């Protein structure tokens, strides 16, 4: 029993300290994408936390998504999500990825990542500063480390007409 706990502990430790990410642009304006890229560069250097940007969904633990999910990108987004091995987490970055942002109401968008795949962390901003992205990722990692008292299935924010 105890051994199991220890092993679980080690697994969680490794998971928290080695989050490899893949980035997908589902129709964003690039603003968020360049800020994500900026987090890897010397000033912010996410490698400090063991985060590496991977090219192949098979190697990734975290899917970092931007954009309001255009109809064409939807299939791809789902496919990439499915290609990722368990356990996997999704981070939505930017106002568009959260709710459609300025593009709300445009005819060709789904209006947010969580309309298509489940999201684990939300980072608002247009775009969020690189520090804010780090903040969001750290919040996600902290929650993996010590799962909060289950607030599962986050209730939808109600829509107003």
């Amino acid at each position, binding site marked *: 029993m105890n051994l199991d706990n220890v092993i679980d502990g080690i697994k969680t430790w490794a998971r928290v300290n080695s989050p490899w990410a893949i980035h997908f642009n589902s129709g964003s304006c690039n603003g968020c994408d360049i800020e994500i890229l900026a987090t890897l560069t010397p000033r912010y250097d996410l490698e400090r936390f063991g985060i590496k940007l991977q090219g192949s969904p098979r190697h990734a633990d975290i899917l970092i998504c931007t954009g309001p999910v255009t109809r064409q990108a939807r299939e791809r987004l789902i496919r990439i999500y499915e290609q990722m091995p368990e356990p996997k987490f999704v981070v939505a970055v930017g106002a568009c990825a959260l709710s459609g*942002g300025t593009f709300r109401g445009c005819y060709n968008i789904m209006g947010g990542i969580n309309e298509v795949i489940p999201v684990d962390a939300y980072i*608002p901003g247009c775009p969020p500063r690189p520090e*804010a992205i780090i903040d*969001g990722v750290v919040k996600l990692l902290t929650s993996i480390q010590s799962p*909060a008292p289950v607030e599962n299935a986050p209730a939808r924010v109600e829509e107003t007409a």
Partner: protein
Amino acid sequence: MRLGSMWRDALSALVREPATQQYPFERLQAPEHLRSKLHWDLTNCTGCGLCAKDCPSDAIDVIVLDKKARKFVFRYHVDRCTFCSQCVMSCPKKCLEMANDEWELASLTPDDFLVYYGNEEDVETVLAAAASNGADASSTDTE
């Protein structure tokens, strides 16, 4: 023609401190003009809804409970806001202001992104109405 023309950078980087900032362990002061979370001040608001009208991403609902008694609730969708400050420019009464240091808004649930400003009892009225009537309880009044 040279090989490895950046060797000087590489060597000096070895002896110098890395350019990396230690966020989140050390938090630097954000620039003075940074646009982050929006704040609303009831005092002068007339409930005219101009802010909501010009918001490009539908992030503001001005809920008018009672125009005469100036009972307004200001509902702000952080997840939709593009931090463009147009609402601040549009408000004729200067009720709106964007903080410059509240940019750590990330959250694990979208619930946190619905922010209500207003008198406590008014907000409660709105929340109660929303809870009892489902999604469409609070109609946005823009005029």
